[in-house]
């Protein structure tokens, strides 16, 4: 189960229906929500004021898109070139070869590495999304003395370069006996992460309070307000969190490098580093292997991203209150 993905409870059940906690919603909260409705949600694309504007946007996007996509296309095409042609700057390889992929595939237990990476990524992304949303809600909705200072402390944890906290953190995981397992690569996310807490908090602050106060008046408990009202409304930002964390974990080399030893536990970036180092031996860089490794790391992410973000972000704009 994860926030922002899959089935979410409808925000407003028909009046009189019992919610998950067995409480019966009264008209009051529904009214409050209905009132807030137009301010919260709009249809997906009712903002088109002119065809011309859209066409211009398309042209601009296409030009910029080429700028953004070019380096990656370069990378993909280089991965199909033999060693002698990697840097020849042709987008269509002169000599088209699958050898690099075959070589990487033969040298490495890629399937196993992919499995490890998927496990870590799923655990990391779901835990960080749920925990960060909770903490962000704690900072956004409640008022208590010291809140500002505590939130400052959350931000402060982002300000110390990781290079100096890396070893003490390693010692903690070592004391917990987790070095050499996949745990340190994701379990820290159970406690939320400053970046996402800040992000989601900003979003929550933008929601009208009357919505939640009304629900409280109706007798929803604190958790119910968060889970049934705040979270569904925050789907876009939770989707963003999920996507960012998937990206971050998928490409995380440093932690994998210091925590993992046995190649059976390697994640994809860690495994590819071993491979690439071997091919870079003695300064003799086999760039064709390096670019191929980069492509192999990136492509699954692109596919997941493309499918997920379409479903999630677009789904958000049109779902929810309009029913």
């Amino acid at each position, binding site marked *: 189960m994860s926030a922002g993905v899959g089935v979410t409870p409808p925000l407003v059940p028909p009046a009189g229906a019992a919610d998950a906690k067995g409480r019966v919603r009264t008209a009051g909260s529904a009214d409050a929500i209905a009132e807030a409705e*137009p*301010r*919260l*949600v*709009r249809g997906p694309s009712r*903002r*088109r*004021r002119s065809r011309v504007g859209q066409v211009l946007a*398309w042209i601009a*996007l296409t030009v910029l898109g080429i*700028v*953004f996509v070019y*380096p990656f296309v*370069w990378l993909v095409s280089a991965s199909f070139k033999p060693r002698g042609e990697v840097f020849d700057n042709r987008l269509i390889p002169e000599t088209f070869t699958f050898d690099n992929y075959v070589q990487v595939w033969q040298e490495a237990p890629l399937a196993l590495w992919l499995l490890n990476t998927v496990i870590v990524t799923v655990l990391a992304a779901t835990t960080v999304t749920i925990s960060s949303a*909770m*903490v962000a*809600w*704690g900072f*956004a*909705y*409640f008022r*208590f*003395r010291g809140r*500002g200072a*505590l*939130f400052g402390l959350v*931000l*402060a944890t*982002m*300000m*110390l*370069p990781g*290079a*100096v*906290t890396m070893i*003490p953190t390693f010692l*903690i995981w070592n004391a917990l006996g987790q070095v050499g397992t996949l745990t340190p690569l994701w379990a*820290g996310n159970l*406690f*939320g992460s400053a970046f996402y807490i800040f*992000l989601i908090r*900003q*979003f929550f*602050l*933008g929601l*009208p*309070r009357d919505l939640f106060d009304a629900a409280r008046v109706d007798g929803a408990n604190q958790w119910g307000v*968060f889970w049934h009202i705040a979270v569904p409304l925050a789907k*876009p*930002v939770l989707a963003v969190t999920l996507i*960012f964390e998937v*990206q971050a974990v998928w490409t995380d080399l440093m932690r994998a490098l210091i925590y993992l030893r046995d190649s059976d536990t390697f994640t994809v970036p860690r495994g590819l580093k071993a491979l690439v180092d071997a091919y870079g031996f003695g*300064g003799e860089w086999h*760039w064709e292997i390096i670019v191929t490794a*980069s492509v192999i790391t*990136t492509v699954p992410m692109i596919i997941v*991203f493309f499918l997920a*973000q379409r479903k999630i*972000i677009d789904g*958000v704009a049109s779902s929810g209150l309009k029913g």
Partner: protein
Amino acid sequence: MTAAAPSAAAGAATPAARRPGGAEGPDASRPVRSRRPGSWWREARPALLFLSPWIIGFLVFTAWPMIYSAYLSLTDYDVINSPEFIGVENYVAMASDDKLLLALGNTALFTLMQVPLYVVVSLILALLLDRAGRASGFFRTVFFLPKMTPPVAVGVLFLLLFNGQNGIVNTVLGWFGIDGPAWTTDPAWVKPGLVFMSLWTVGASVIILLAALRNVPEMLYESARLDGAGFWRTAWNVTVPMISPALFFIIVVNTIAGFQTFDEAYTAFFGSGNTTYSNDAALFYVIYLFQQAFGFLNMGYASALAWLLFVVIMIVTAIQLVVSRRLVYYEGDRK
């Protein structure tokens, strides 16, 4: 780049004008202060339930490394042998370290160039995407692509694409009759080159802004249109104030990240591999810190460097927070 207070010109389309200082800033909690002991607990208890994951995580995983690194900054520590307490010697040594000044200057300059550009570019892209209709999913993926590419590849591509002799960047500039500089080798142009390169990874901010844009009530646009506000006025008076929390987030987070910039510059100019030509112009603070920690094995000194950076970032962020109170508009504060 900040959101100006919406003028009343757009009438109903604009959120209520703000009371000076009235917007709830990130740390402006004004709880009802009560003298009775235990009242704080009553007030904070429900919040603590939600904050507990972070508090536990902080105490177990974050506080100790932070405090420990603060202690290490007062020691001579090479990671191999036990730390040796030397008082403030590391901090004294920093005062006469000319490389530190160079690195800090480089970093500040980079951040100053990068953050505004980053915000403007990501805002423009997000606005375009918001109007793109069906194709926006495809383009979102395109803009997020570079963020997904491993940094080592990005560093190498930087050297290739920005090459002063035949890199594609200068080739394109050449079409417009501009004689491009030696981005990768001329000290004066290295930082701008890296700034442009970093713009290539704006995808993340674009997605955040897009999510914020999607939540701007259509109603406001409708009334702005009825008022006859044009595109720019609508953007300035409706869009920017309504997404100012997201903009504020991007500015703060990118400033923090800018001061800690490392990956691409390290790969391009300092990483192992095919180049031993390190460029002073690309010596950023965290790269220098990293060299001290893992190159010269001066973990104690590196910890002191880290805490100096911590203080610098803290001050900059605090200024941003204070300024934001006046400029950021939170829907939740409307009463």
